[in-house]
């Protein structure tokens, strides 16, 4: 890779790393795993950087890499007979609004993986329906269905806790 390209890569990582870590956390709900997932994602991005840097929506491209890496890990764990764990990370928050805040976290954790991925990509990462469909490898209609069910599930959980 040329020096200028590598500098561009470093600039991109420096600017987007916090957001990428947060997105990864929403997938796996563990900061250690999130960092590993981001590292894998950036490694793959580095390999394709000369092409990727010309992509119109680079963030969407990167989120797709991240999602694939996360799904790969899930398949690998399944092959080894392990269910993907969603460990608690750090102490539970406290305060007067703890019930509602915990609901927001638990909502996402409890969604099936594909619904969770669709909701995160669509509404946290601001991917379009088409981009989310491409990332998930499904049709636009399936994305709409996944996000609709995901959001409905959220509302049910939230409603039930109040």
């Amino acid at each position, binding site marked *: 890779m040329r020096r200028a390209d590598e500098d561009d890569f470093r600039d991109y990582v420096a600017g987007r*790393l916090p957001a990428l870590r947060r997105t990864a956390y929403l997938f796996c709900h563990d900061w250690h795993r999130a960092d*590993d997932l981001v590292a894998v994602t950036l490694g793959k991005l580095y*390999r394709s950087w000369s092409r990727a840097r010309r992509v119109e929506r680079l963030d969407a491209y990167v989120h797709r890499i991240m999602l694939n890496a996360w799904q790969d890990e899930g398949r690998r764990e399944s092959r080894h007979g392990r269910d993907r764990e969603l460990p608690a990370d750090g102490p539970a928050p406290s305060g007067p609004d703890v019930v509602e805040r915990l609901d927001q976290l638990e909502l996402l954790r409890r969604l099936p993986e594909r619904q969770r991925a669709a909701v995160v990509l669509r509404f946290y990462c601001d991917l379009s329906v088409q981009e989310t469909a491409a990332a998930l490898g499904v049709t636009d209609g399936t994305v709409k269905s996944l996000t609709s069910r995901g959001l409905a599930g959220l509302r049910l959980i939230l409603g039930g806790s109040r």
Partner: protein
Amino acid sequence: MSDLRALLDEQMGEPPASTVRVDRIIGRERRRRRARVGGTAVAGLAVVLAGASAVRPDGGDRSAGTRPAAGPTCATVIPRFTAPASPGVPPASPTTAAPVAPELPAGAEGALTAALAAAAAEEPALRRLAPAEVGGRTHPALRFFGGPCDQRSGLTYLAAAEVRTAAGAPAGRLLVYVQLDGDTGCTPTGDGGACTVSRGPGGEVIRSRTFDGDVQGQDIVRVLVTVEKPDGTTLQLVADGPPGGRRAPLDVAALTRLGLAPGLSLP
């Protein structure tokens, strides 16, 4: 849906300090590309063990003080370790290109060896050790020497030993790598079993995983633990069981104890 994003951001709170280091990522990808271009057959773990980034997270070149300015060239070497030999058969020799170590910091091997020996003495499973053959040379048990390295990644030390049971039968092999800012190799897309991540008492990042099955053509159990220390030292500890055996000589807890041993740090 900006409300949802705001809620999720609030719930996540302030993230812990990132362990993602772009220099490591770039260094790893460069090594991967060189290995591919060179046509070297690389096993997944071997890539991990190949080297370490010498560039510190703060951007400083930590190795600058220890690496000779115009010293011997450190060849790109991808080690490919074979599993321990079957009982009664001499240990197989790792298949590596000839490692060419750079000039190493004076005294580092001795200090590391002493620290590892003290920690190993506390492990009942390591009561009986034998020299190990690495890169075509026989090395005293658990004595560090300049191991595989590449020009960018800087220094790597390796200690190895054949582990014996109380009766003297082969129980497997132990490998301990010490690097600066090394790749941990325990990422979501690595080969083998799931990676478990934890924190040590001093803030160390500890990753572990266990393979059970075909490792480079042999049916063995392999336990891998990596320890990233706050001072930049990365240890990779590998315990391979004998071919066909159902256990490695050390488990994750024992390897972790070794990895956290005081003194196992590069200056």
